[in-house]
């Protein structure tokens, strides 16, 4: 029997799984408030904290860029990594798993579909907060920063796939862990302050999350005067290494845990 190639199925799956998210964003516009205005309020609140402390202007930029990347972290965690937990409850996971596609493609589709909302949220925070509070950026670092941004997001989504495989197996426990880890991750990644403030050890641990180094590199590129955590080139190389490592680990983990999930009846809603 001849079948479509694995690559064709992979690509078609990504597009197909992204589609409901695009459609949902188009048909239900409530997210424009929950995903743009509300996070913007959070970012602005942090800006006021720095202003009240008479911090240097670049600190406002730290907060804005942190708010931008936070959008993608939340997309990875809540719209991708934990999604199998909900999909299992709805019965979708069974249908995804028994199709001749890969769960990695399903996850990438979720990520792509969610990225539209995240990009809108990130762009809103960047534009509105920057204009409102007069944050300025170094134009010379703009294109390299864009490159680092793409690398960081890639590493982040690879990490998201790795987490999703764990969530697939550990289900509710992992979902609760993700919930509990939220604030520590915000802290360790230095979303609202330069990561150097955390010191070498804590900052080093936080660097396992691609956002930490990526965010620091972007800040160094477009916010002159950012305290350097580690040299920019090392940060970029580390993010590239994370893409490779997390991509490989996520594939191994997805395959292994999918098999374990078949063994332990975690793909199905059990009913004998």
């Amino acid at each position, binding site marked *: 029997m001849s079948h479509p190639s694995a690559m064709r199925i992979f690509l*078609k799956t990504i597009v197909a799984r992204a589609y409901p998210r695009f459609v949902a964003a188009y048909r239900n516009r409530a997210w424009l408030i929950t995903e743009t205005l509300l996070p913007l309020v959070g970012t602005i609140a942090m800006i006021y904290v720095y202003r009240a402390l008479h911090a240097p202007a670049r600190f406002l930029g730290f907060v804005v860029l942190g708010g931008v990347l936070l959008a993608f972290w939340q997309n990875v965690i809540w719209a991708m990594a934990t999604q199998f937990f909900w999909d299992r409850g709805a019965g979708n996971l069974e249908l995804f798993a028994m199709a001749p596609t890969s769960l990695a493609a399903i996850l990438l589709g979720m990520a792509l579909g969610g990225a539209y909302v995240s990009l809108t949220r990130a762009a809103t925070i960047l534009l509105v907060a920057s204009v409102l509070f007069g944050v300025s950026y170094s134009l010379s670092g703009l294109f390299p920063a864009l490159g680092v941004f793409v690398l960081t997001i890639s590493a982040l989504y690879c990490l998201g796939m790795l987490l999703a495989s764990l969530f697939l197996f550990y289900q509710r426990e992992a979902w609760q862990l993700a919930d509990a880890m939220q604030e520590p991750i915000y802290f360790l990644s230095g979303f609202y302050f330069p990561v150097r403030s955390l010191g070498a050890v804590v900052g080093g641990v936080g660097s396992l999350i691609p956002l930490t180094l990526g965010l620091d590199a972007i800040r160094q590129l477009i916010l002159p005067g950012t305290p350097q955590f580690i040299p920019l080139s090392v940060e970029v190389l580390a993010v590239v290494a994370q893409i490779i490592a997390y991509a490989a680990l996520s594939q191994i983990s997805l395959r292994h845990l999918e098999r374990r999930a078949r063994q332990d009846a975690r793909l199905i809603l059990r009913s004998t």
Partner: protein
Amino acid sequence: MDIAVETKALRRVYRSRNQEVVALDGIDLQVHRGERFGVLGPNGAGKTTLIKILVTLLLPSSGEAFVDGLDVVRQFRELRHRIAMVSGGENVGFGMLKVKEQLWMFSQFYGMPSAPSKRRIDELLERLGLSEAADRRVSALSSGMRQKMNLIRGLITNPRILFLDEPTVALDVGAARDVRDEVRRWMAEDPSRTVILTTHYMMEADELCDRVAIVNRGRIVAEGTPAELKQRVQQNSIVDLQLSPGGRLLDTLRRVDGVTAASVLEQDGTDRFSLQLSNDAALGGVMRAVEGSGRQIQGVQKREPTLEDAFVKLVGRGMAEEEQA
């Protein structure tokens, strides 16, 4: 004869902290290509576990299973191209999508080119009378329409073997008939197609299946055509008794001399007992037991045996009975 599905000593045990549940306990099964094969059994018998192993969602604890000649454990990736599953009461997909969008989405997970996929979806929507709902959101569908959509999802990719797990559960008579008609039509299009069906509805199995296996407590207790299974109770007299509600009577009736099997179904405020008698003389003892219970007899009817009667004899209770226990 060409074999579509084969299991050998298939066993599945679920383990939780302090408990082991044997869902399948050595299932040996052969389903021929082109058959509509029914798997019948009460809740917890192991039907769904069997299906989930055959569709590669669950690994067996021991034993072997082959679908379309492929090992469900080792060759599951290739096998997934050739099968589809539709379950009753499915609420899968995304309510925000339109019906045709949802069907297209699932077809893409099999790599189908979009244009033929959309043509096939239109054709199947038409056949199942859902064309007018094609642009309706999934969340707005009735349960009957939703189940027809689910069946279409299973058919779009043209599987060689279709697994139907309680496909008409909770559907009204008309929608259930439409689903059964489509299954028959789909099978008639290509004689090499095979359907494996689990159902609670004996009439459905009788009407739709070429052969059935009755599963109880993880084992196959009988296998054959519906006619062959009915033959097993042919020598019995089958009597239906409609009684006013009252205390427990079933066990008393089962102890009456000459009663070989009994089941009860509560319906519209009446208890409908179905009794299998080794001879007509046993009816006297039955009537005495009823009188002793103080219940009113609202109807008595002797009839031909059905698959349900064969099921009651083999399993020891009726399919609906344990749901009401």
